[in-house]
């Protein structure tokens, strides 16, 4: 289950039921949490094909934006955003509402 946005949850559940359990979620999918206006971990090293899911655990909305690469909708408390990295490279990202919040995904 790669996406857990509230809106997409139902779709994701159905997709998971239709797919074999082993492909519903890759073993090396990664998580980033937002706590106290900080991305944790701030830097993540992953392999191509990995899906990263960000979860906002603050009482304030945040976003995840990497210029020209990916951009989440506004995530309210407990909302999630997922992105699958298919190309190697360094992906700097930040919260467009609180730009002092920055993070990095290194894909090899």
């Amino acid at each position, binding site marked *: 289950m790669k996406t857990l946005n509230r809106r997409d949850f139902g779709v994701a559940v159905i997709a998971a039921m239709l797919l074999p359990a082993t492909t519903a979620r890759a073993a090396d999918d990664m998580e980033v949490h937002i706590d*106290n*206006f*900080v991305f944790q971990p701030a830097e993540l090293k992953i392999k191509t094909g990995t899906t990263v899911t960000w979860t906002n655990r603050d009482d*304030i909305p945040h976003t995840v934006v990497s210029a020209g690469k990916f951009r989440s909708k*506004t995530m309210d408390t407990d909302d999630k955003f997922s992105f699958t990295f298919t190309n190697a490279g360094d992906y700097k990202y*930040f919260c467009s*509402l609180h*730009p*002092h919040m*920055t993070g990095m995904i290194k894909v090899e």
Partner: protein
Amino acid sequence: MSGHDHGDDGVSRRKVLECMTWAGTGVLWTVTGGVPRSLGIIDSAQAATAAAPGMTFLQISDSHVGFDKPANPNALGTLEEAVNKINAMPAKPSFMIHTGDITHLSKAAEFDNADRIISQSKLDVHYVPGEHDFLDEEVKFYRERYGRGTKGQGWYSFDAGGVHFIGLVNVVDLKAGGLGNLGAEQLAWLEDDLRGKSQSTPIVLFAHIPLWTVYPEWGWGTEDGGRALEYVKGFGSVTVLNGHIHQVMQKVEGNVTFHTARSTAFPQPAPGAAPSPGPMKVEDAKLRSMLGVASVNFKQNEQRLAIIDTPLQG
């Protein structure tokens, strides 16, 4: 605070600055030649304002309509309390400015609810957006409601009571790792807007994020705010009014007075006093002492400007 002298030279600047930052209740400030003086506690201050001729306007900020987290489960309710407080003021203000974060998530219903409550003040309201007002997918709700007649992302100026007011937008196109942002287009407009103005014209700049650097570690400042302040440097009386940090903070530099207003929704911690600038949960009994509005009085003949911060309670 009640011991402060109401006379001419009763309070040292150091003492005043202490009071400004830490006063738990509202204090009236007057500015003469760029140096503010305390005129006393809130009740006598209000009385002085009520008796004084000149123009009074209100600042309301960070109403975050739609916020329902533990720090204040009913932000719409405390906004209504603030408006009731405004309606009960002894002298009716000329108008109101709202320094942004009207809503929490830029939902149409949040804007509608905010407008329903704020309009009960029956005052003209001049808005600038906060970052929470530009969150809808098409970024259109704020502009449809408040953007008419404005330039660029929503900046504008107007004159009232002999004062030149400038509403700026510093919540758009923020850069990774940076602070608030005005941008080249807006700065060029500002320079042009001020061109030809007499330097004796009192200037009020208002924007959501502080134009001065309060605490960069939490993003509390504006990357190119210094550029805007360069343009107003030559003016005899400049007042900069901001929100965003949900607490009263003031500083004076030359002829420029910087002031931030309380939120009507929830308090935020003092700089560095908590792990993050997020909503601060306080005892229920204490919440309303940390929310409120500001009123600003300008007397043309005496060239002084006074800011009163009024908490919802206490």
